[in-house]
């Protein structure tokens, strides 16, 4: 049981860190660009919210399979497939939670507006400098919300991890898939224990988000 909890936390932690790195430039671009077609990109990045996890899992499985064109360049490094691997699970989780990272960060960048960056520019800060010294600190609440959401969402995912991970004990088995298998095997006690843990975890996460929101509303003006 500890092993499955560790795999789950490792997956959620790694997904959160990597996804923030990917989502930040995307959110920045979406918040700052004034072209209409950026919304096409935004819609694509939001698709994982509305698609059934099985659809996402299916296409990710195809993309990570040995015959996939995306895998071909990795063959020279001795990597045939990422399906049913922990790495594949991380990639799948990142795609699945992408909108939960992009939306809060984009929102925070948009709420900040252009003025603080103009101020920084007139105070000799280069665009790169002002991104780190002004934009990121001013959008910190968005980053925190994104990190909490992605971490929680990854812990709660089931369809995608089952499709592309296959729930291999010690490698790709996570709490949600273990619960499913415990129920299948009529081990209700174990299923109940893990489920209760997730309910408690979800409650703490939501409470944290709401407190964060309240503080944000009070301190922003």
């Amino acid at each position, binding site marked *: 049981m500890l092993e499955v909890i560790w795999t789950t936390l490792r997956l959620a932690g790694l997904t959160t860190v990597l996804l923030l790195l990917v989502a930040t430039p995307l959110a920045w671009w979406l918040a700052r660009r004034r072209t209409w077609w950026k919304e096409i990109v935004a819609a694509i990045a939001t698709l994982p919210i509305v698609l059934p996890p099985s659809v996402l899992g299916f296409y990710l499985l195809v993309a990570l399979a040995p015959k996939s064109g995306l895998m071909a360049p990795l063959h020279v490094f001795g990597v045939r497939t990422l399906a049913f691997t922990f790495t594949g699970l991380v990639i799948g989780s990142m795609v699945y939670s992408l909108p939960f990272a992009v939306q809060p960060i984009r929102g925070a960048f948009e709420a900040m507006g252009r*003025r603080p960056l103009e101020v920084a520019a*007139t105070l000799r*800060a280069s665009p790169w400098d002002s991104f780190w010294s*002004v934009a990121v600190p*001013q959008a910190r609440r968005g980053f925190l919300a994104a990190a909490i959401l992605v971490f929680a969402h990854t812990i709660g995912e089931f369809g995608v991890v089952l499709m592309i991970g296959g729930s291999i004990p010690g490698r790709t088995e996570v709490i949600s898939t273990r619960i499913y298998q415990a129920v299948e095997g009529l081990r209700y006690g174990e299923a109940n224990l893990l489920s209760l843990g997730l309910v408690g975890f979800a409650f703490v996460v939501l409470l944290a988000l709401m407190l964060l929101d309240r503080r944000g509303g009070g301190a922003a003006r």
Partner: protein
Amino acid sequence: MSVSATFKGRVGSFPIDVSFTLPARGLTALSGRSGAGKSTVLRCIAGLTRLAGRLVVDGETWQDGRVFLAPHRRAVGFVFQDASLLAHLSVRDNLMFGARRAGPGPFVADEVIALLGLAPLLMRATANLSGGERQRVAIGRALLSQPRLLLMDEPMSSLDGDSKAEILPYLEALPGRVGVPILYVSHDAGEIARLATHVISLEAGRVSGVRDVAPGGPEGALAGLSEDARDRLALAALAAGLRPSDG
């Protein structure tokens, strides 16, 4: 040692076509009604808005047909209408933001802090400052970025009467204490009369007039003259076709 600027183009549907020079010292008011293009001209000088044109400051070309210096490469101090202090930083860190990046220069932190009476504010959060205090911090912050040109975009327009009265003495002292030209956007004739030594009027995106005025307004300039001399001067001015300024 001066500033010469020419800008021509459109911002939205609004045409701008201006050309002017600034004296090397003193406060030049850029006056005109709202919508005359005053703020746009200021933004063009700072490089925040890009129009075709030419801008030379102290012999250094900031913009012409080939060159366009990014805003952070232009030694301007910009004081925005609403102060625009960086909300995630304290007063001290706002003041030092530009100072750290610009390096040492003629403006020294202790002197600027004294000039603007900022010492009691240093450790405060920006959220708890009054309008006048915010604007003083914004001016100090701009000066500490070692500008060769100070741009002020209606710094008093968002202030209430008390805050205006509080900040006015600081603004009046500014031109005499800083050795760089100040370009001050305002549509308030009273403000201009009190602060400016030089006035550029804008109308519908064009320069409609340029004039020199004595600092402190007509009273200041004529204070040394006798009643009789003042009357004769006024008559001569009327005869020459001048009208009393609306200040």
